[in-house]
């Protein structure tokens, strides 16, 4: 069975939107409360490789893309989550599933100010210790 069919069949109605830019780039949107289960399913059951995550500050909220790579077919499955609450953005951490996600969540936490609930070690990674609290350089309202 094709990987995309496996994902579609298992996740069913949890997929809010499914978008294929090409046969190699598949983006799908889910609700933020499902991220832990879905990341576990993609990583542990389907054996996809976690490549990285990227946070974007958009007008409608913070968007996080979790990029999973299916290396056998050269495909990227990017799971999109929208955090609409811009004042207190929060999402479950996926680092307890596999340690490879620890650093990138720390980076998004300090750069965009998104709180990862359940992260084992949420502290600064790239910014220096004297960087002012509450300033998030990758937000759109942060001007250089």
């Amino acid at each position, binding site marked *: 069975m094709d990987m995309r069919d496996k994902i579609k069949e298992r996740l069913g109605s949890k997929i809010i939107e499914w978008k294929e830019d090409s046969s190699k780039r598949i983006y799908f949107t889910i609700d933020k409360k499902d991220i832990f289960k879905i990341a576990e399913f993609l990583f542990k059951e389907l054996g996809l490789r976690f490549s990285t995550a990227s946070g974007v500050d958009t007008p409608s909220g913070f968007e996080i893309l979790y990029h999973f790579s299916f290396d056998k077919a050269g495909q990227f499955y990017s799971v999109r989550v929208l955090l609409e609450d811009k004042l207190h953005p929060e999402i479950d951490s996926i680092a307890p599933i*596999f340690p490879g996600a620890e650093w990138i969540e720390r980076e998004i936490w300090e750069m965009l100010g998104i709180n990862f609930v359940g992260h084992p070690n949420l502290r600064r990674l790239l910014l220096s210790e004297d960087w002012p609290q509450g300033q998030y350089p990758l937000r759109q309202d942060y001007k250089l």
Partner: protein
Amino acid sequence: MSHKVIVPIGPYHPLQDEPEFFQLYVEGEKVVDIDITIGYNHRGIEKVAESKHFDQVAFLVERICGICSSSHPYAYVLAVEDILGREVNVVPERALYIRTIIDELQRIHSHLLWLGLAGHFIGYNTVWMWAWKYREPVLDMFEMITGNRNNYAMFKVGGVRRDIRDEDVPVLKKALDELVPAVNMFRGAVMDDPVIKARLKGVGVLTKQQAIDWCVLGPTARASGVNIDVRRDEPYGVTDRVNWNVIVEKDGDIFAKTVVRILELYESISMIRQCLDKMPKGAIDADVKDIPPGEGIGRVEAPRGECFHYIKSDGTNQPIRHKIRAPSFMNVASNKVACVGGTISDAAITLAAVDPCYCCTERVAVINKPDNKKIMNGWDLIKLSQEKTNRLKQEWENARTE
């Protein structure tokens, strides 16, 4: 774990050494924990990229790393070309070949650089000198093609900036031919030397499951039996039109990582030769004008693993988001498992084995766990590592004479 503040060793000089700070927690000889601090070299390039137009960003990302300085612009232009369609639909044939040649030349110079430093860390300074000596002609090849020994400025959206002249092709081929005996020598020096085997086998092991869980990439993953290589999994340039093999080892120790890198040198040399033979004539640039709104992902197999770029465009001439993930970001984190449990004399080479961008070990501070006292710095560690090699050499000599 103690949160005592530790004064980092050596001056922070981002131009000379790449600053990373490892704190090793040791009990006697044994490393029991490690704390990794990075970010000293964080220059906010992702943020800067959001204020540059698409042409400028290629130059900007080239400056992320001086060693793999073609991987970042390559991954970036692939991400932009992903918005436009696929690379093969956008870029002229000849440019695809030139891109692969540059990418593979860079792998050769980077692996030789690592080999030299690894040799230095375990006390084989001859390997160090020779590896860097044979790296020079590779840089000369770069200079011949691009005009630069580093930061080649070759990549642009839709093609490459400079052509390879016909009269240069035989010179390049000759230089590649001369490189093969040197690689043969390194293969012999590393794979047949009993002392190096004794020194590196079973040291700094990253098991396959650990490699998967820590999402490591490139030679670090392939040495642990994880069969991934972007060049095969999602071909770019002409990596699917030339013959080559993905090198996979299964032991996961430093010896396996060394073997993977040395054998990859042969594959890269062969790929460049085939590219030079097959390269068609024609344009090298598609002259792309506008970038439509959308999002794209580009990735290439940098010498250290998958280099990832994500671009979001809103139809203006600047990206609104540019996410960059270099392979070392995943690989360095895995030191947490590769280092712990080993002895302190193996720490320098283990930390260096993922090729984290080399001189980071200069910033190692060793802390004796019971009283949290700092007892060593990075140079002491390298010395310890070299002493262990000498001890093994001596044992080997003794065994032979008996």
